[in-house]
């Protein structure tokens, strides 16, 4: 077990390293993003440009530059943005984390509740109209482009019906929970709903599939033979086992989201989270911020992967020797 854990940790570190190198290389192979001229502004003279180049260490060979950047990112932690000069990367990312966490965790609670309820109902009422309707709702939810849904939600809540039905909807933006819990929740309400719509459907269908599979298992047949009602079997026996893959799925999705995969939602709703930070940095091709965000995102995804692997190793010893 320890060996397995150690190996997983080592591979996680390797993955992070590989990603950082790839990102760095892509950036410097990308034409039109010479930071010197962008920093120096328009119509700058060649002398000014040269000075800026020296100042930012852009004259050094690639491996040296990479090493310097990694040092700033992890060791001295003074990596600064190329575009918003003087602004340090790590604090920027750390500041954006609570926003993303608020968005993702809130949506996660919603989609889990919705997904579990919908999935259980669909399995329980299989064969009636409820099942396909729920499945259809879920499928429709999953098939919508998230930024499209977000813009439509904004159109309705902020503009068209803002004077009547949705007058209580606050302007777009983020209010820290430390300032006001009510405002925090109110500002995040529609982002939560939009994001959870996408995932609730997935989880409902996963759970439904698992439940239906579980209903054919031996232990369920035993319970049936003992006279336990179908409903009870579903909820007390099958559900417990079926939740495991759902939980593992949740772990992976949460990892990716916390790392910034919800970037389109954040952009559309004006939430200053890690996703939006990444998006802006990409548009500006601001390498240090991109590195920071990518490493942070990769860290969470790899962490989530590793945790899920560990949990499975605990549950299923066969895996440890795989």
């Amino acid at each position, binding site marked *: 077990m320890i060996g397995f854990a150690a190996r997983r940790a080592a591979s996680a570190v390797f993955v992070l390293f590989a990603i950082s190198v790839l990102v760095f290389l892509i950036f410097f192979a990308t034409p039109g993003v010479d930071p010197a001229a962008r920093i*120096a502004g328009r119509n*700058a003279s060649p002398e000014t440009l040269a000075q800026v180049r020296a100042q930012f260490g852009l004259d050094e060979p690639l491996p040296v530059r990479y090493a310097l950047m990694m040092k700033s990112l992890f060791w001295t932690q003074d990596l600064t943005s190329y575009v*918003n*000069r003087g602004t340090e990367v790590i604090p920027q990312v750390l500041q954006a984390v609570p926003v993303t966490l608020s968005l993702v965790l809130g949506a996660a609670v919603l989609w889990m509740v919705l997904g579990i309820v919908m999935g259980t109902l669909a399995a329980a009422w299989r064969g009636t109209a409820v099942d396909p309707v729920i499945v259809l709702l879920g499928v429709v939810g999953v098939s919508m482009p998230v930024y499209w849904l977000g813009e439509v939600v904004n159109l309705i809540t902020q*503009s068209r019906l803002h004077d009547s039905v949705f007058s209580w909807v606050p302007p777009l933006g983020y209010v820290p929970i430390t300032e006001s819990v009510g405002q925090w929740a109110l500002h995040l309400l529609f982002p939560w709903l939009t994001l959870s719509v996408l995932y609730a459907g997935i989880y409902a269908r996963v759970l439904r599939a698992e439940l239906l599979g579980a209903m054919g298992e031996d232990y369920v047949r035993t319970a049936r033979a003992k006279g336990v009602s179908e409903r009870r079997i579903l909820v007390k026996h099958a559900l417990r086992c079926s939740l495991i893959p759902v939980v593992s799925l949740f772990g992976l999705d949460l990892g990716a989201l916390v790392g910034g995969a919800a970037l389109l939602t954040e952009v559309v709703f004006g939430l200053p989270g890690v996703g939006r930070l990444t998006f802006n940095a990409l*548009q500006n091709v601001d390498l240090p911020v991109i590195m920071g965000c990518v490493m942070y995102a990769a860290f969470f995804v790899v962490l989530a992967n590793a945790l899920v692997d560990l949990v499975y190793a605990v549950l299923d010893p066969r895996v440890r020797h795989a």
Partner: protein
Amino acid sequence: MRPRLLLSTAVVAAVALTAACGSSSSSSSSSSESSSGSAAVSTEYQEEHAGGTLRLTAHAAAGSIDPKVNYTLQYWQLFQAMYDGLLAFKKVGGEESFEVVPDLAEAMPEVSADGTSYTFTLRDGIKFSTGADVTTADVAASFKRIFLVSTPTAGTFYNGIVGAEGCLADPATCDLSAGVVADEAAGTVTINLVAPDPEFPYKLAVPHAVIVPADSPPTDAGDQALPTTGPYMVESYDPNTKLRLVRNPHFTEWSREAQPQGYPDVIEETFGLTVEAEVTAVQNGDADWLFDPPPADRLAEIGTEYADQVHVNDLTAMWYLAMNTNIAPFDDVKARQAINWAVDRAAAVQLYGGDNLAAPVCTFLPPGFPGHEDDCQYTAGGGDTWTGPDVEKAKQLVQESGTAGQEVGIVTSDDEVNQAIGEYVQSMLTEIGYKATLKPISSNIQFTYIQNTDNDVQLSLTSWYQDYPAASNFLNVLASCASFHPGSDSSINIAGFCDPEIDAQMQQALVTGQTDTGAADALWTQIDQAVMAEAPIAPLFTPKIVDFTSERVGNYQFSKQFYMLVSQLWVQ
């Protein structure tokens, strides 16, 4: 995104020191209402309107908050209410906004007979927001700092100061003691130039030349704001969320026209909303103004339902297609002329926002600019103004040039308006016989990308906004050999146009302009026509600017130099 202000690299301009180069009178025949407030700022400060928080929005922050580094319109608009230089553009609306008046200096400078020496007497009693007095030492240090922090215009504006060349070459050993002489006892500062420069007062009036404390860091201050002298100071700046300005407790109004007291107690600019969301926020009263141009589909809405909150103002600017004259297919003049014949300028106008927001142009110099004369070499049926494209003629020229069927890449910014016009241009190019592809790239990098010849950009859509009112601003900057630097991200002559004869004419016009503006203007007109015959660019239209303010905002003033006067808006 609105391009930044662009400054002239001209050595000598035709305009005399204090002449209201408001000979760039509000142009032509537009039928839009222009609330440019030709009335000057009210002569009295109206106390009852003071107070409140002015909430501005912008899609993104604009980089460093250091006035000697930042080169964006977004922050220059805010710097007017924060920092002061020896001189300043008059902070009023209308024509007088091009006048330069003394700011931290007591009066306009005494200029030596040969025009190379400017002596200023510093005003007494002005303090920084930290409480420290503004001294001549601060002035000297501020000029030196221009070279220490690599101000973008250091090599183009301030290279005329004695000692500047050395500072540019090696900032570490920068010695401006001969160029900027501070006499603490007399309270004067004398600036010595290598050669006379009638544009120098303008260069002193832009934010790159403001006075900051001598102990300011010798590197870009980034997101740490420097102490200010104006009515506002920075309380906090987070490029991801907002910039917050509060009243400077040590400010007392010393010159109403140079630096008037501001009305709001707090000015806050928040970042991060999409432009659509910003428009909605202003409509709902959740924000007071948006910096970014409103998207085309919202223009109709705000122009009708919110018409009294919309302010449309003329600009001396142009949007144009730059063609690379050094690589195929536009190294052939016939191909370039074909583009000029084929492009439907009215379509470009529609895509920008309609006839009330733009007017087609055919010349380098925009209407209303000194030296402009109506003339159009590429309009169907001939005439002095553009009436329509002649696609048949264009097709013919393409055939004649032998470039038909070649691949052409069009590089534009990826914001809505630019991309829409780019798509239209692509369609037009396909129609006349090329294989055109559209390449929209991020507006943050597009401008430098198209300047660098290493990128082999064949055709690009870009714009040029006049900075200060110098007649040489357009032609000399955009079409002279000196502005073409191959292989550099900073080569503003994007077309790469270099014609020695025309260059010689431009030099002559510059020299003539030192003494005889009228003659110089006539020369510029000729040069304009000569350049357009070679067609290195295809001018599209001259735009107007739209400011959309919320219901509660009052006292909108439009300065031709810095556009909306932010500190003069009141919210109650």
